């Protein structure tokens, strides 16, 4: 069965008894969620975290409110929380990152800077190599990774990202900027 409907329309179909509709949501979001989780946690644990995410989505789908946020924002928020729970369970959450998060909660003067400017052409060429990009991203913290992945890979807006990460718009913008600066240092 193929679905050309929007996520919200598929959810309505599912709620009306079309069980196969949920399978379509799984097919649609497995790859983006896998990339997101694999980047902020690791590739080995990503399948388990995504499976747990989809079970949470399935259990709570009646609570989804399309007026509050899009399904994409909602499912990424659940994924992020599931991934954080996983990290907490494994006790590998770096306190350093948490401290950085708190420090960066304040707005930043850097928000108006065109961030992509921080990456030179040679660096961008290097990034075209998948292995190189993955190795570079591994050197970033999970927090920096998630912002870059959501912004560049998932092409989400700052607004959507701030909802998913539960941070202010300015914080997200400044964190992306810092992540790019760090990426440049790594590439250099």
């Amino acid at each position: 069965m193929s679905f050309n409907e929007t996520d919200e329309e598929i959810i309505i179909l599912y709620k009306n008894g079309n069980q196969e509709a949920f399978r379509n949501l799984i097919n649609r979001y497995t790859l983006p969620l896998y990339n997101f989780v694999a980047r902020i946690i690791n590739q080995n644990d990503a399948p388990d975290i995504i499976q747990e995410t989809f079970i949470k989505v399935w259990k709570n789908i009646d609570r989804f409110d399309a007026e509050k946020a899009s399904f994409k924002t909602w499912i990424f928020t659940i994924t992020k929380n599931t991934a954080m729970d996983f990290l907490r369970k494994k006790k590998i959450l770096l306190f350093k990152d948490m401290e950085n998060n708190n420090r960066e909660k304040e707005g930043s003067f850097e928000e108006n800077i065109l961030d992509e400017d921080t990456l030179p052409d040679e660096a961008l060429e290097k990034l075209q190599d998948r292995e190189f990009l993955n190795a570079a991203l591994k050197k970033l913290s999970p927090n920096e990774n998630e912002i870059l992945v959501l912004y560049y890979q998932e092409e989400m807006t700052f607004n959507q990202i701030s909802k998913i990460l539960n941070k202010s718009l300015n914080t997200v913008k400044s964190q992306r900027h810092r992540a790019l600066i760090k990426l440049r240092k790594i590439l250099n």
Partner: protein
Amino acid sequence: MHLLIVYNTSMKDIKENLKNAFLKGSLLPEANLADDIWKAVIKRNQRIVYSKLITLSLTGFVSLYSLAPAFRMLALDFSQSGFYEYLSLTFSSGGSIVAYWKDFLLLLAESLPVMSILLFLMLVFVFFLSLKYAIKQIVKGQLSLSL
């Protein structure tokens, strides 16, 4: 003006390049990951359905099993409360009942074994409710089995 256009175009290119880099560097999961997740969801659904079905069946069985003694108790209470005697008055002295119908109705109501009636009705209600939800769970279970 020309420089500004060139600058903006260049910025757009860089942003696009970065997006392309992320898309090209996309990590690929195992081919059957989506199917595995779907199977896990179905399995979880079945587990929930079965546990609910067991609970509902037990509740239904207990309420059904309790219906017989509850009914016996109800019949005994009816016979001991004098309800039947009062009721039989409607056939034997219909005229006086018409004259004092309000008092008679009150007397009849007072003679009802309220607790036994409530217990019996509650058991009937619980039985039908558990039957209804058990059927629902069976349909749900069959649906997830068919997927």
